């Protein structure tokens, strides 16, 4: 019965291949995607409008800031949903028979991780702050920061990591990230512009209109980074311990 599913899959594949004949050649600068006025405007005017050298960060945080805000909200909702599904699903204190292990955290691993985790966190801050000039930005920095907490949870145990970043603080940090993002947008609205029109922030900051967009982008990326950090760690903590927040990998 399941082998019947091969037929629609092959049909769809054949249709896609048939459509692929009309695609432009790979790398052709005259293809419609590359010639479009929107992309040309982004490439040409990003320096003039925002003075940010990294076009991708400028488009992500400024020209398309609304998309990014709702993407952060989606990440937040996913974290909350995982929390809601797994909380109190298993009795606290019950351990599976095959998960009982008598080993202490290993000496070499813990000492190496003790040296490396601060470096990872500083690198995460660097990636976040330098996202205007090099590849990077809010998401990448946030994920690296969350990964540093996951590394602590993997080398010692989950309780050690949760002692440093408890679950209720995770939720507060995640919500603070979204409030920061929306707050910058609302502030621009109260100052007379549209929602997320960062140039209006030049009325409160002592910089020019272009540099106001530059600095507001940094604020917005910090908001995104906070939410992503908290949710990545919350995702790992709940999934590896089935919601009990003890034991785990």
């Amino acid at each position, binding site marked *: 019965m*399941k*082998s019947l*599913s091969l037929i629609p*899959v092959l049909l*769809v*594949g054949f249709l*896609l*291949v048939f459509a*692929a*004949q009309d*695609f*432009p*050649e*790979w*790398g*052709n*600068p005259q*293809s419609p*995607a*590359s010639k*479009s006025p929107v*992309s*040309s405007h*982004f*490439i*040409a*005017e990003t*320096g*003039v409008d925002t*003075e*940010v*050298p*990294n*076009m*991708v960060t400028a*488009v*992500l945080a400024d020209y*398309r800031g609304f998309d*990014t805000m709702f*993407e952060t909200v*989606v*990440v937040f*909702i*996913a*974290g909350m*949903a*995982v929390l809601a*599904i*797994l909380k109190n*699903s*298993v009795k606290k204190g019950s351990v599976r028979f095959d998960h009982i292990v008598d080993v202490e955290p290993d000496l070499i691993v813990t000492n190496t991780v003790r040296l490396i985790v601060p470096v990872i966190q500083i690198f995460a801050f660097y990636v976040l702050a330098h996202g205007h*000039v090099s*590849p990077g930005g809010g*998401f990448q920095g946030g994920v690296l920061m969350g990964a540093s907490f996951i590394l602590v949870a993997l080398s010692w145990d989950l309780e050690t990591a949760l002692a440093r970043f408890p679950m209720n603080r995770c939720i507060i940090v995640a919500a603070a990230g979204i409030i920061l993002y929306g707050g910058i947008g609302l502030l621009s609205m109260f100052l007379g512009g549209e929602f997320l029109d960062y140039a209006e922030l030049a009325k409160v900051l002592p910089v020019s209109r*272009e540099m106001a967009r530059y600095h507001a982008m940094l604020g917005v990326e910090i908001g995104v980074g906070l939410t992503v950090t908290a*949710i990545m760690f919350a*995702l790992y903590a*709940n*999934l590896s311990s*089935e919601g009990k927040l003890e034991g785990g990998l």
Partner: protein
Amino acid sequence: MFELGDILNDLFLERLNYLIYVVLLMIGLHAMIAKNNLIKKLIGMSIFQTAIILFYVSIGVKADATIPIYLPEHDPHGERAEEAGGPVALSVTEVAGYANPLPHVLMLTAIVVGVATLGLALALTQRIYQGYGTIEEDQLLVKLEREDGRTRKDEQPVPDATKSKSTKKTPTKRASKPASKKK
């Protein structure tokens, strides 16, 4: 009329990469439909998502173009800007030297949403395992049908001859199933 040679040339020599993207999409789609194990279905979903992202990023490629970060000579804080007293908009030939940043931006969002979806789907899988004890689709279907049969029996009206007996069955284990581990 199409000639076979033309089609083969078009498909296999110039657009080979699109063919491989289609193959990846089909692998992911088939895995989502036909695999028995829930985790394999989720891996298929992830393969499907990343293959679409690969396709999108590849249409933003320009031959001999550099990455979408300003080179030092076009930098808004660089020498050309200082000479002109402010950042200068790029000309058309210079624009053609940079890769298209728009697909990159859209796909950044797609990647992050993909990992959020994967996390949520894995939480649901764990819950299913706690409730039913298996993550194979055929065994799950058998268990679900058995449960459906049991609830249908509960709802059938009892015949008149046994009216003296209590007709209300106590709520079955069904209601408390999520809290108990099956094994």
